[in-house]
């Protein structure tokens, strides 16, 4: 046991890396899919053991109260998605959309992506964090293009170009942070170690740090799908395999957000630098309002939920931009709930698209009659994502709206406008998809129930009861975020 606690960080990183290596060598997709699940499960268990204890921060690895939430969430959704993926790809093989060779590649890339994201969350070095996010991005670019249709290639290309520009901005921002730290901390690895940076941040050159943050916000904001630079997100979600849509929305956006939060904490220590709050509030509100209105014109079901992800990222960035214990708490809760709910929705949508043979909303109607299980799961998922009580997202949105009304009533009006518009759009679509006259194919489809129920169950429980331990912990992190 003590060995595990000393090495759990190493395990979280080595298990996906080794699994990826084995998966590249292994033919036969059935075994690969199982191995993918096993690897993801082991990573999740290793991540859980972080609660029991973890090594102290060193120059390379850092586990603190902030990233432990992200890591456990990341590995959990990674595991459930691998379960979903197993049944999903079986169907894709039958219909001939994917070949066994591509599946081998797909599974290996899945683990490479998990490795990249776990590394990004665990490292204590802003340069390595950048590299890890880039690795995860490249892996997802390849997976988005895996169907090799016109649309998939266009989506992958767009994603690649925009993500590269974003990642380039983020690197430039990272270099600027290093330059700001150089006179205070000295040359070398120290000036990129996050814990060292945090302790000395108050002495950094404020103007350099301010410019750096703008680049970092734009760069990582591209990956988080914030609005002026969101264009890749709907395409990538719609055209890639659905398990990838689930991890993109549920995980990769969070990882980018995590990077922004780390730098925001750095900025908060330096009082002479620009305050990151107003920038994040503006970006968040623009994303929320834009995506909320865009939801109305969507004809493709995966695109619909991709825009809903932009909307939620907007809400979360807005919450962290507001800052203060209550808004930060709401942001963290919203982030967790959105990850769980949105990936569950994508699991359901993946099965629906396979059952109907189409992603067009016009072709998908009356699901509660033709496929009751999928239909009702979708109803619960959409109600949750739209913020209906008593589900988890209602709680975080309620917290956020109340605290905003107290502190900045004008902003709260905009926030509520965005939430209401999005709510209307989602319910409008849900109505025809779930309760219209059944259309198209009604053949039953093999559904992997466990991931869907696990996610929606957690969201429902969180809506009515948050364990005091979790609350206490979120509160602690909220104060840490400032």
């Amino acid at each position, binding site marked *: 046991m003590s060995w595990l606690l000393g090495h759990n960080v190493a395990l979280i990183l080595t298990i996906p890396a080794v699994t990826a290596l084995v998966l590249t060598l292994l033919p036969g997709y059935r075994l690969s899919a199982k191995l993918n699940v096993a690897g993801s499960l082991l990573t999740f268990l290793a991540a859980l053991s972080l609660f029991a204890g973890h090594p102290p921060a060193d120059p390379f690895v850092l586990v603190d109260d902030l990233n432990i939430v992200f890591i456990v969430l990341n590995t959990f959704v990674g595991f459930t998605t691998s379960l979903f993926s197993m049944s999903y790809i079986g169907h894709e093989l039958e219909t001939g959309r994917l070949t066994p060779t591509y599946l081998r590649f797909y599974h290996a890339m899945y683990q490479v992506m998990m490795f990249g994201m776990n590394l990004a969350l665990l490292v204590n070095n802003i*340069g390595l964090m950048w590299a890890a996010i880039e690795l995860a991005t*490249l892996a997802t670019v*390849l997976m988005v293009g895996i169907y*090799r249709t016109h*649309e998939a290639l266009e989506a992958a*290309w767009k994603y690649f170009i925009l993500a590269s520009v974003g990642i380039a901005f983020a690197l430039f921002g990272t*270099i*600027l942070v290093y330059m700001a730290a150089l006179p205070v901390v000295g040359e070398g690895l120290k000036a990129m170690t996050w814990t060292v940076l945090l302790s000395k941040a108050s002495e950094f050159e404020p*103007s350099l740090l*301010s410019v750096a943050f703008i680049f970092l916000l734009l760069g990582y904001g591209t990956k988080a799908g914030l609005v002026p630079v969101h264009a890749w997100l709907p395409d990538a979600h719609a055209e890639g395999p659905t398990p990838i849509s689930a991890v993109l929305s549920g995980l990769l956006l969070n990882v980018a957000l995590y990077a922004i939060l780390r730098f925001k904490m750095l900025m908060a220590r330096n009082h002479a630098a620009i305050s990151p709050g107003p920038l994040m509030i503006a970006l968040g509100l623009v994303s929320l309002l834009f995506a909320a209105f865009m939801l109305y014109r969507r004809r493709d079901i995966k695109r619909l939920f991709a825009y809903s992800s932009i909307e939620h990222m907007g809400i979360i960035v807005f919450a962290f931009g507001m800052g203060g214990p209550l808004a930060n708490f709401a942001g963290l809760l919203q982030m967790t709930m959105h990850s769980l709910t949105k990936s569950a929705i994508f699991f359901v949508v993946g099965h629906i698209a396979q059952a109907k043979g189409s992603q067009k909303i016009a072709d998908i109607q009356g699901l509660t009659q033709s496929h009751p299980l999928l239909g009702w799961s979708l109803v619960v998922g959409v109600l949750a994502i739209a913020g209906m009580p008593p589900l988890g997202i209602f709680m975080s949105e309620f917290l956020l709206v109340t605290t905003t009304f107290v502190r900045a009533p004008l902003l709260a009006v905009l926030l509520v406008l965005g939430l209401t518009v999005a709510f209307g759009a989602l319910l409008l679509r849900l109505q025809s998809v779930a309760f219209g006259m059944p259309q198209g194919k009604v053949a039953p489809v093999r559904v992997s129930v466990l991931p869907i129920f696990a996610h929606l169950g957690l969201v429902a429980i969180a809506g009515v009861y948050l364990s005091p331990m979790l609350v206490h912990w979120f509160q602690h992190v909220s104060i840490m975020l400032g």
Partner: protein
Amino acid sequence: MHGIAFDVAHLLAGCLVLVSFLMLYQDRLYSLLNTYALHATVLFLSVAWQAYIQNAPDLYVTAGIALVFKAIIIPVALHRMIVKLGIHREIETVVGTGPTMLAGMGLVGLSLVVMLHAAAGANLMAREDLAFALAVILLGLLIMVTRRNAVSQVVGFMSLENGLILAAAGAKGMPLVVEMSVAFSILIAFIVIGIFLFRIRERFDTVDLQALDRFRGERQ
């Protein structure tokens, strides 16, 4: 140390910005690739000079990679690919040369103003270096925005990446990242060349991205 060391570094970084401008108005793929090779060569000189004045031997590796991979291997490979694909015709640019050049000048002005102001506290060399690097990055972005052709977008991206390496090389004693960014730029180039272009070529008769734009997912 200042005097000549600073002047040469300044000159080389300035040249890199100038070559970026040259790339802006190349309307043929061949000449764009040749200009890119020149860009990478100037980057090699610039990074090698930084390695010499900072007495940082690992930067020579970065410089070597810039010369071998970026100035020779990648342009040659892209040359061959262009011939194979039969697209050595003119590049259609979205905006005309005039407005593009004006926009480029605006971006260079912007990056000088921003960086010289923001990095006022840093030492002179680092400040100038950052300003030029940002200019190269923004010009690379402009190249990507004004081109529709997949190959020239990749070239634009690689020139943007050169700007990042210029910035990283100018940051004294920066660990890991120089090697990493080089490794990544190679990786990206390979991914793009190997997978995307071949797949695009396989599925489309053209590598003109406008052909891809026709397949907007929202259209029914």
